[in-house]
């Protein structure tokens, strides 16, 4: 910065100080603006590049198998026949479990922080929950594989099998795995660990949108004699529902694309069992396991699965963004 300053001082001594400094000023402005614009374009090109490379890389797989690639459940490197279904279904099931558990957890935490916690407790609890998001995914994987899964297999799994197993239809989801299941490695445990991982994302969005509810609105409800729960359910939630849905979508996007933790815990089976207590796989876990050893059509098929994963997360994240933007728009409308 000092160099520019001495530069302008020197200019004062020169013959045509004003025009020269004006020129360099104007030039500096153009250069700076276009550098900034260029790097903003880089961000756009990144996304375009990712989509282009994924589409180009997956073309051979789609040419060989057509759209049946998505629904085929064969994965045979010897016969060179590949299908995405077991991984795709595993991804969706694990994400669904994560949502079923993670959603009430994050909702409860957000309510606790915004409506119940005394002022001095809000910050520490909020920070602690956000630290859950900071823990690297591979750490969740190690903890899940060596501690949570065995704990689950020893104490929770037998209970689930005994109580939910005998139920008609629903019970097939909770049959004891054929290999005994003593390791606890399964689609269900992966889903549970995923739910813990996405809680901080959903909880912090919910907390943020709950906090924008005008105090007067809540106080009016309290003045009418409403309980805290009634205020949350009938005032806060309707006011913020688009934002809450946006937060849920954000969590879902995370759950679908999560890789390392799932790779550790889900067991990486090539087929999806009928029971949630059986091991399975997800697209991300399949990529992590097989990508480096693959070549030819297998590599193309893996890239094609990457494309499917990217398209799903893209749609989910766009929906999330739209919901949050809609909430922001109604906010603007109410202010003016």
């Amino acid at each position: 910065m000092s160099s520019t300053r001495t530069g302008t001082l020197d200019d004062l001594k020169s013959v045509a100080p004003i025009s020269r400094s004006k020129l360099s000023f104007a030039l500096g402005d153009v250069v700076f603006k276009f550098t900034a614009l260029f790097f903003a374009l880089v961000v756009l090109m990144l996304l375009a590049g990712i989509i282009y490379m994924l589409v180009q890389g997956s073309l051979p797989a789609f040419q060989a198998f057509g759209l049946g690639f998505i629904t085929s459940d064969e994965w045979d490197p010897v016969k060179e026949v590949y299908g995405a279904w077991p991984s795709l279904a595993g991804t969706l099931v694990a994400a669904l479990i994560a949502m079923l558990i993670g959603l009430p957890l994050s909702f409860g935490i957000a309510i606790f922080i915004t409506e119940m916690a005394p002022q001095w407790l809000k910050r520490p609890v909020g920070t602690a929950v956000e630290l859950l998001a900071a823990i690297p995914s591979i750490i969740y994987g190690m903890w899940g594989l060596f501690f949570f899964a065995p704990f689950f297999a020893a104490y929770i799994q037998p209970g689930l099998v005994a109580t939910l197993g005998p139920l008609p239809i629903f019970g097939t989801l909770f049959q004891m795995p054929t290999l005994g299941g003593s390791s606890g490695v399964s689609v269900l445990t992966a889903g549970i660990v995923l739910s813990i991982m996405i809680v901080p994302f959903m909880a912090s969005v919910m907390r943020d949108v709950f906090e924008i509810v005008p105090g007067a609105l809540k106080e009016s409800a309290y003045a009418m004699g409403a309980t805290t729960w009634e205020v949350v359910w009938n005032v806060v939630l309707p006011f913020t529902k688009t934002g809450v849905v946006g937060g849920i979508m954000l969590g879902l996007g995370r759950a679908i694309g999560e890789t390392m933790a799932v790779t550790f815990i889900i067991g990486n089976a090539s087929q999806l069992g009928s029971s949630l207590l059986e091991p399975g796989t997800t697209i991300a876990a399949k990529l992590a396991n097989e990508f480096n050893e693959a070549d030819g059509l297998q590599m193309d098929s893996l890239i094609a699965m990457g494309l499917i994963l990217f398209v799903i997360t893209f749609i989910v994240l766009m929906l999330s963004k739209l919901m949050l933007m809609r909430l922001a728009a109604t906010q603007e409308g109410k202010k003016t």
Partner: protein
Amino acid sequence: MNLYARRKLINTFNMTASVLTTLVGLAFLSWILIVLIAKGVGAINWTIFTEMTPPPGSAGGLANALIGSLMITLAAVVIGTPIGIMAGTYLAEYGKQSMFAETVRTINDILLSAPSIIIGVFVYTLMVAPMGHFSGWAGAVALAIIVIPVVLRTTENMLMLVPTQMREAAAALGAPQWMVIMSVVYKAAIAGMVTGVVLAIARITGETAPLLFTALNNQFWSTDMNGAMANLPVVIFQFAMSPYDDWRELAWAAALLITALVLGMNILARSLLRGHKQG
């Protein structure tokens, strides 16, 4: 039961559930941290910093993985930070509410939450496949793609917090816009911008998926960014999944090291931001 009692009961039940969910969240956080400390502290000693990753069945350290991680992370930050800061500057100072700026913002949010393994696949097809070998540079580029959206987001947010009057005052003194931005706006927002970079470093320190297909791993000491490089996350992945006790022990040591670093950086970023808000 009358209506009043019923309402009170529902309220008590739901509020208790809310407290319980918070306790569950905190319990999982404590469980993970306790496991890490219990398994990691015993495994950490000086040889970790001096010896190479061992072949299975013998003792060793993580020195090559530490230097590899350090170099890859540094390169990723050097590549990603300027791009993120300049693009964020464009959005806050020039683009504002224009269609183009809104599009960049949306795309950036998508990159921010895109599965990191996809970024690994992208860089593999972009760099590793054409070059024919894994490399530290490919790893750095993959991590830089994760750095950019984090830095862009925080830079833009922090620049928006700078009052317009400060820009106007500088402009009234005759400063051109680039000078206003460089010497007034950046100066006012520097704490927040640094926070963004610290958060980005924290984010990539533990990232494993993008490195699997790019930097891969290397059993030996290597500071050559053109070849496959050892790095902590991939070493953790390989060693933790292995059946060898020595390897698993090292994986726990590395896990504790990485988590301590990441949580430390997160707390540092928070305190930076808090000091900034008060000042």
